[in-house]
């Protein structure tokens, strides 16, 4: 296990280094001049040069890169070139919206996917099971933004149970208000991601239900259904955990879109604004942070997978 931990940590560090390099290069080498954009199209070359110097964009690329990485290692994500506030501070503040939002969305996805996936698997030859898997395909093809709009129409405009948009100005000091503001956005992401998870639960359950140890377990007493549920759920749990890394990416992208739709002051909406402002320093730190989150969760998931699935331990 220690060797695996060391190998995973090494791969994670290599991955982070590579990701940071890629982000940096895309932002610096791609055509387009951030200083020109900030200065405006009809500004004098002297003014553009001054802005470039102020942003540090006139230094050699390796110096810029190492400066950025050195700052990251000290916990300094740089200063926004538009507002002048430290990036780390803003990110910490926005996470108060985005972290609970994605956690709630994941919860919604699991609550949908686990029971319905089990039903779809157990009744897969029955019309109701088939209908469930077609519905899952349909829901997986729904754009998150549209799911959000339909939810707003029914539960905010129609029933008036939830706000159409916005987040309490006082944030989590108003816990009920904050929670209410996040319910519809979380469901919008969760339904779509849950439909994707449902198919994974279903096929894992089918795999387990068809294996011989289910028959053997039933033969030792108890019902076939009981054995299928016990074994199947164990298999489905393992499969769900193993795709959580990929799901994180989906949740984050969903968060970018629903934060825009519901005007929630989260990380995604900030990123959208920063991209619009060409705030290179912020964009590169934010994108690296999100990528790092996906990579780290991927490693944690992989380790958890090893802990709950004894077969992987034997093989290694």
């Amino acid at each position, binding site marked *: 296990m220690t060797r695996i931990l060391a190998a995973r940590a090494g*791969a994670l560090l*290599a*991955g982070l280094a*590579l*990701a940071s390099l*890629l*982000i940096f290069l*895309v*932002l610096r080498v*791609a*055509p*387009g001049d*951030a200083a020109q954009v900030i200065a405006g199209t009809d500004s004098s070359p002297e003014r553009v040069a001054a802005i470039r110097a102020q942003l540090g964009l006139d230094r050699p690329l390796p110096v810029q890169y190492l400066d950025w990485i050195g700052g990251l290692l000290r916990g300094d994500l740089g200063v926004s070139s538009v507002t002048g506030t430290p990036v780390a501070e803003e990110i910490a503040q926005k996470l108060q919206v985005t972290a609970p939002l994605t956690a709630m969305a994941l919860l919604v996805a699991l609550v949908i996917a686990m029971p319905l996936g089990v039903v779809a698997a157990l009744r897969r030859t029955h019309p109701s099971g088939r209908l469930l898997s*077609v519905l899952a*395909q*349909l829901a*997986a*093809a*729904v*754009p*998150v*933004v*549209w799911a959000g*709009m*339909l939810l*707003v*129409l029914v539960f905010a*405009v129609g029933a008036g149970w939830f706000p*159409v948009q916005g987040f309490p100005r006082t944030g989590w000091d108003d816990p009920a208000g904050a929670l209410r503001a996040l319910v519809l956005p979380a469901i919008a992401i969760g339904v779509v991601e849950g439909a994707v998870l449902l198919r994974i639960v279903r*096929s894992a359950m089918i795999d387990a239900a068809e294996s011989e140890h289910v028959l053997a377990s039933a033969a030792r007493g108890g019902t076939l259904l009981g054995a299928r549920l016990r074994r199947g759920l164990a298999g489905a749990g393992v499969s769900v955990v193993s795709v959580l890394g*990929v799901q994180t*990416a*989906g949740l*984050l*992208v969903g968060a*970018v*879109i629903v934060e*825009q*739709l519901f005007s929630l002051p989260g990380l995604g909406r900030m*990123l*959208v604004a*920063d*991209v*619009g402002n*060409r*705030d*290179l320093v912020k*964009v590169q730190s934010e*994108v690296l942070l*999100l*990528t790092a989150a*996906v*990579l780290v969760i*991927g490693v944690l998931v992989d380790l958890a997978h090893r802990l709950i699935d004894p077969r992987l331990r034997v093989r290694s």
Partner: protein
Amino acid sequence: MSAPRLGRARHPPLPRTASRRPGRAARLGVLGWTGAALVTVVLLVALVSLLWTPYPPQAADPYARWAAPGGSHLLGTDASGRDVLSLLMAGARTALLVAVLGGALAGLTGVLLGAVGALTPHRVRTATAVLIDVLLAFPTVLLAMLLASVLGGSLGVVIGAVGLGFGVTIARVLRGEFRTAAASDYVLAARAAGMGPVRILRDHQLPAVSGVLIVQLSWTMALAVLAEAGLSYLGYGAGPEVASWGRMLADMQSYLAVYPLTVLWPGLAVTLTGLGFTLLGDGLRDAGGRR
């Protein structure tokens, strides 16, 4: 008298590996055919929209703002008096353009990265595998935002992000397929007969993975349609002069409570197109005997 030629050039003509494309079309199944039908309808609508739409899609008629569905505007008009049906038809063009070009770029990226990650010497192979894993951690939408922050939003950015982002997913699948094919007896036989690596790739390994590639491409096109809608909604897609379902959703968002009907159509169009490509991919996979 010339010396007898030895080596690679002299092997007898060898049969190429039969392409493992999913079998006869009849095996697509009901759902697969449903997907094919949905995709065909969208394709036809896009083609028709090139020649004819009820109104020019971008023609704003200030005297016909928010016209009710029915009458001279079958699905009504939007806030600036543009015909919703015409915008929807023209939007199919944009969605399919991104699906086809993004899909093609993703396929190319997938085959190249997959082949390099499977068939090159050990070190190059391992390095490529690490690269693929890191690139997988970049969500496609994030990649598009990264590109848009330098280049500004455009359809090109969407296509590039879709091609690279989803191409990496294809590469990971194809890497395994290429490795399986490389270990097969027919590749060994071809090598024994003196075939060069490029010809082996072209005549044996590409046909062997083509079935899996086609299924992946169909799924990628579904994701591309969804990504185009999401990115155009965020404002990173086509400019205002190009009709796009995602942009329609963004335009109609402010009037959601007042004119809820108009928001239904573009969302439904994205969903059905995405569903079409997904079901088609599922059908092709099942027809090819893979799960």
